[in-house]
């Protein structure tokens, strides 16, 4: 959309690539989510934060790989012609 690539594009890219080639795309996604991840790390004790961060990254990778696309609603549903 704006200067950052949209999640939609990134996730699609992820799913089109082989697992070994996904690294760069995944990195972009994670970078966009970085603040949120950092915030979530406060959930746990300081010495466990690295582990948690890794856990979150793995989880996000799985989640993007396995994302099930659903159809969006048709646009005419929002527009009523009179």
């Amino acid at each position, binding site marked *: 959309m704006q200067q950052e690539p949209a999640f939609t594009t990134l996730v699609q890219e992820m799913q089109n690539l082989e697992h070994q080639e996904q690294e760069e795309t995944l990195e972009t996604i994670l970078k966009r989510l970085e603040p949120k991840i950092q915030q*979530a790390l406060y*959930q*746990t004790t300081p010495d466990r934060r690295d*582990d948690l961060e890794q856990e*979150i990254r793995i989880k996000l990778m799985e989640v993007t790989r396995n994302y099930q696309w659903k159809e*969006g609603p048709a646009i005419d549903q929002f527009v*009523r012609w009179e």
Partner: protein
Amino acid sequence: MVSACKYQSPPPYHALWQSFLREQKNKELLYRYVRNPNEQQRKILEQTFHQFMFERRFLSYFSKTIHYTAVQFDKRERRFLDRNQRSLDAPTSEEASPTEISSVKPAHRESTNTLGDDISSDFLSSAWERLTKKQQQVLDLSFVYGYTDTEIGEKFNQSQQAISRLKQRALQYMRHLYAQK
């Protein structure tokens, strides 16, 4: 041909649609389509909207994933510490003398390590014997071998919830017997 355009009263994506229109350039796309309703304009509008929608979806999906992973992580950590503490506090098998070993021995298990062997109190071992075979097995797997409920569930072809309930009930029963003692 000028057509007036309104939102349908209760459409499922209403709120999303409204916030979509709050952006000026999206509004213009809509106006362009309304003024000149052809397939191409419709496609552009629809694509932009879908992109907007998926962007929102992903953002909330990802945030939720991050949040719950963090919560789960701590929970698992606490459970792990909890469980290991318990196994350290429990008497080891060398401490229990042969005469005190309970007679309970599940026949079909590969290993004979069972909680029953470790129980030194008469009361506890009699309470242990009043549990069903299944309950004893599940407690063994859980506390002696440290399996998770999910793994035990896979062994018995049951859900994690069922195992958890079974375990809770067994412990509850033993506590109940203890209270009556």
